[in-house]
């Protein structure tokens, strides 16, 4: 089961869960993903220490896709 989660004030919120065979769940995940990107979130897939990939399309085969806000110099 793959998950799309957003880091927010609650700690994090699971926006969608899917398996590739479930087209309805995939469509819901794609829709949630696009909505969040349009709201200014960045989507990231972490690949262990020192590595992560920012994605613009929902990678359906990844177990965890994380949405984060932009960062800025303090």
């Amino acid at each position, binding site marked *: 089961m793959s998950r799309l*989660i957003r880091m927010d004030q609650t*700690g*994090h919120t699971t926006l969608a869960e899917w398996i590739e065979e479930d087209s309805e769940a995939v469509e819901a995940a794609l829709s949630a993903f696009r909505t969040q990107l349009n709201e200014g979130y960045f989507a990231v897939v972490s690949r262990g220490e*020192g590595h992560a*990939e920012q994605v613009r399309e929902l990678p359906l085969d990844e177990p965890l896709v994380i949405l*984060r806000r932009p*960062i800025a*110099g*303090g």
Partner: protein
Amino acid sequence: MYWRPRASPRSLRRTGRLWTLSTISQTVPFVITAAFLGALKPITVPVGLILLAHAWIIPELYAARGANVVSRRGAGAPAAEARAMLLLGDLVSHEARELYARTGLVPERGQLGLWLVGEAGALLVLPGERRVNCLCVKATDPQLPPADRVAHLLLALRADESGFATLANLAFSGARWRLRRRLGARAREALDQAVARARASRGAQGT
């Protein structure tokens, strides 16, 4: 941040040297003046001592500013923080998770050096472990719990380390010993562990 050249090992070394030169240019005039006054009129020695104190305090103030980037901010709502820590725990090793719980900092090895990522900034221990850069950078959502703020920075760092180092504002670049004295006990522990880890890793690579 198109106006800033992308950070690289070379640019970080140059920035470090410039920082040191800048500090020297601010402190040496006080030292020279103190020595000159003392030689000219021994009665001015108290004034010279004040000047020397100025020369000493300038780099200390910079180091204190650098240490401040990893000071802990507000605790946040306990439930949200606990939930955020679950996610952060999924992103890092058991050892890093424990260090975060104790110190509020997460260690992360990168191409530019060893990072210690906090809620609103990061320390970059440069190769050789003698110089540390203190970088001010934060998530743009102020409502996030602390562990989520760290996770934001950690993911941004992992996705584009050079971009992360370019975007962040440099608060201090200098000797590790000078910064260490200005850190709180928890951050000091994290720094010591990070340095030990970097040395152990280098030793393992050398064997």
